[in-house]
């Protein structure tokens, strides 16, 4: 098996799952998988291992492209654009060791489940649907300030769940 195929085998399942979660359409999700690996292929020389895991990088690309497609589907203005592709901060190193990264991800997953439902809902709308805080407030019929507080509190809780 060649290296590209091995890399695909290792990560395509998560990329496809995330794209499905965001787009809820199998055909669109598979298109995203192709776009993600194509993008990664083209920009491979710009990837720095110390900045984060390969999986994290691929999933960030997947999220951005999927949300772009979701916004286009709903004719919503594109505010994410290439933001996550191009501005993943260069001085923000995620854990370079995959085992540590996986441990951190597991902690986040546990933390997500433990969040109060209203916080988790607001955060998931922001992350998986790419909604702005104003759009979330409108969707949930809640004051904007409440939504801001819910998301901030949720992210603070999740950050605290990380190992130092």
């Amino acid at each position: 098996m060649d290296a590209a195929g091995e890399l695909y085998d290792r990560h395509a399942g998560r990329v496809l799952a995330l794209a499905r979660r965001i787009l809820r359409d199998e055909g669109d999700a598979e298109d995203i998988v192709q776009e993600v690996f194509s993008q990664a292929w083209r920009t491979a020389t710009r990837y720095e291992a110390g900045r984060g895991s390969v999986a994290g990088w691929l999933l960030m690309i997947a999220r951005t492209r999927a949300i772009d497609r979701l916004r286009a589907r709903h004719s919503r203005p594109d505010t994410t654009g290439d933001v996550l592709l191009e501005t993943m901060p260069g001085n923000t190193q995620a854990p370079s060791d995959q085992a540590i990264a996986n441990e951190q991800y597991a902690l986040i997953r546990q933390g997500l489940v433990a969040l109060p439902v209203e916080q988790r809902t607001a955060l998931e709308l922001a992350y998986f649907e790419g909604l702005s805080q104003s759009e979330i407030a409108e969707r949930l019929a809640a004051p904007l300030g409440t939504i801001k507080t819910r998301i901030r509190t949720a992210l603070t809780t999740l950050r605290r769940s990380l190992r130092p």
Partner: protein
Amino acid sequence: MTMDRHDTIGAMLDEYALGQLSQDERRNVETHIRECDVCATDLRHLTVVMEGIAHSVDPVTPPPALKQRVLASLALQPQEPRRAAVESNVVTMPVTGVKIRRGVHPGWLAAAAVVILGLGVALYSSDATRRLLIDDVQEAQAAAVDLQRRIDLYAEQADLAVSILTAGDMQPIAMSGKEDATASTARAYWSRTRGLLIVADDLPVPPPGRVYQVWVIGGGTPFSAGLLGDQGAGRGMLIAPPPNGVAPGTITVAVTDEPPGGLPAPSGMIRLAGSI
């Protein structure tokens, strides 16, 4: 960097990580995190959280046909010469806010090499030449990004200086030298709404391990406006937004020598001072 700016940017990091900011807002955040270790650390943790949320979705088994489709598309894409691909990266580098991603992920290069060889396409004259080219391009990219950062910073400072000098409430302050700075001359321009601009000439070199810090004193309480930037040839300058909390009434602007990075309250010798 002011605490106001730190607090403002710090409050935007969540939305930055979620991709909810406008381009200008993102640029402000990216400029700040290069200067602020606290915010950079916060953002690093937020990035891990974002990746963790992505990993919270259970992986699925992709249909076999998808793998064939993806690998087939990859095999077609590297047909353009590698040099062109690298140059393309130069063009698409964002003009602001992005650190150069140095280094090459060996897995991807290996993957690229395998597919390219599989296609029988000789894209590179030699591996060493390619690496040298990539290094050169990355150096140039780093220089370009650094230059852009400086231009952004200067433009921001120039805008603030103009807004101070043209503010309706701007008041010039004559400053005089003290202690070993009696030969120094300085002009300050204070606007309660816009900020402070101070230019000092013929300043003595600060004592070893010390820097000059500027204070705005209102109601007897000093507030740091920032560090006096060394412009060379004895000239120092600072353009800063107004510190929070300066009481109305008589304003004194003073320059003291302090440890690197400055202090929250003055401790060193006053070198320049003036009041209105």
